[in-house]
């Protein structure tokens, strides 16, 4: 009798409780002069209550809907994880390495995630898109993209 609502309900219950408790620390104030934690306390508490009711209503559901794995049946979640790691790496490297190099590397790796193109094609595509986006955003829209320690 596994059910995804049950786990997500518990997750949001925890989030709601943490929010409500932190709000208490920020100070509720009085009704006459509500403090900084006033509205978040209520939002967090209501979130916790609603999650609790989601949790209990999922208990009534006796059908086995499968656990987490059922959400990824026939899919390739590892590809998502790989893309996320690439994006996180980009976030940290774009400033030190600069826009041009990090974007080219990112695109080169991303084009290979789902595509089955030849290496030459991928290199060319990554180069074209990197230069193209640099022209549009840096030169045309003046977006001030990061230059990196190498100066470009």
């Amino acid at each position: 009798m596994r059910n995804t609502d049950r786990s997500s309900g518990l997750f949001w219950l925890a989030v709601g409780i943490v929010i409500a408790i932190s709000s208490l620390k920020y100070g509720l104030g009085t009704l006459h002069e509500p403090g900084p934690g006033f509205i978040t306390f209520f939002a967090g508490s209501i979130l916790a209550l609603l999650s609790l009711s989601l949790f209990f209503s999922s208990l009534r559901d006796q059908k086995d809907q499968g656990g987490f794995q059922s959400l990824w049946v026939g899919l390739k979640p590892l590809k998502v994880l790989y893309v996320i790691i690439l994006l996180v790496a980009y976030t940290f490297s774009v400033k030190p390495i600069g826009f041009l190099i990090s974007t080219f590397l990112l695109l080169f790796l991303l084009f290979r995630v789902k595509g089955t193109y030849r290496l030459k094609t991928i290199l060319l595509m990554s180069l074209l898109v990197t230069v193209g986006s640099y022209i549009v955003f840096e030169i045309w829209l003046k977006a001030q993209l990061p230059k990196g320690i190498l100066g470009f």
Partner: protein
Amino acid sequence: MDILHHIFYGLGVALQPVNLLFCFTGVLIGTLVGVLPGLGPVAAISLLLPATFRAPPVASIIMLSGIYYGAMYGGSTTSILVNIPGEAASVVTCFDGYQMARRGRAGPALGIAAFASFISGTLAVVGLAFMAPPLAAMALKFGPPEYFSLMVLGLTVLTFLAGGSMLKSLMMACFGVVIGNVGLDLITARPRFTFGLDILLDGVGLVPVVMGLFGISEVFLNVEEKLSERKIFETEFKGLLPNLQDWKESIWPILRGSGLGFFLGILPGGGAVISSFVSYGVEKKLSKHPEEFGKGAIGGVAGPEAANNSATAGAFIPLLTLGLPSNAVMAILLGALMIYNMPPGPRLITSHPNLFWGVISSMYIGNLMLLVLNLPLIGIWVKILKVPYPVLFPLILLFCLIGAYSLNNNPAEIGLMLIFGVLGYLMKKFKYDGAPLVLAMVLGPLMDNSLRQSLLMSGGSGMIFFTRPICLVILGAVTLILLLPVLPLISRIRKTVEKTEGN
């Protein structure tokens, strides 16, 4: 003839070369975004928002609105030709549009979709011009308690109309209120929920949240899917013009769809999506040949297409008159107006008439441009559809990365966007809707403010919400809506009781 005078004034604004150019750019990008699956108008508008900061405000809003209604046009093209809706509001168009295409009538299907959108867009603009000023005049009398009640009503209606479980939508709305209140408290200047991070002191930006929830998460969902071949019709689109019989079958669905879409669009929560579904249902009921629906009935294309377009115009009413957004796109426009120092609300029409009437008139001109763009250029849009997803998704990601970075030239904004991207991905997996979160996030600080002001006004008594007649009516409506899902349960219980008594 005051209205006519205003519309001509607005046309004067909209026809200025700069505004014409921005309008054209907007509808062009909108159509493109509508055609491309996996990048919706919400993500596209938030992406382009930072780029407009240096442009004139009126032109920027004209462009951003153009993206919104342009996407509705573009979305129908992919629905009809490939059975893949470019965005949620054209899901219904797949039902009969794709069937028409399979019967070799792709041309008239695309044609009627464009004409229906044009007619309803035009009607809705007229409706907007007539309805907004009196509404704004009324809203001038509203104080903080009325605004607070209205926002509660808005969030309630949203969770009621939003897809999926109402309970989960309410949960997301609560979470959104908290996200919206992250940062320095305006009154006490104390940081809330910043985890010691500087980037959160100014609050969580709307743009990274929206791009994460609606752009990045969509890419993640597509990346894990197995690749499927998209079949595109290779037929020539000779006869794009619907014939007389087509018009006869479509004209009433178009008119009904326009009215329906406009009024549903005013309500908070997915106006365009819901109105297209409602319109389809209505036309199927009213049709003399309901069995034709789902097999290529032209009325099933015309009605919903009209409805989703006029709903986009209707959605502007609460934003421009009350300053309250009714969907995620309007929430971003609200943020944009704040940045341009033109806070939307009842005074907007009189304080910035060039913005209000200019934007409305530009929508009329934009609709005309879309008609010209969509019909003869259909071949180009079909070509764009052929860009394979393995090539497309890195581009979408790159645009989001650049968009987030250029907000403040800070990679931390990218990180924030990625966090909400992963959250949005998991939310879709576990069937939570992102729209209530975004809307509540925008309304959160406004609600905080109006609630505190109301309590200051009343000297700390919550009774202020129950002694003012407008508040009372609004909060009564809230209670009613919250009780609605319970009502069928009550009637079912009653029925069981009756049955057992009968036995």
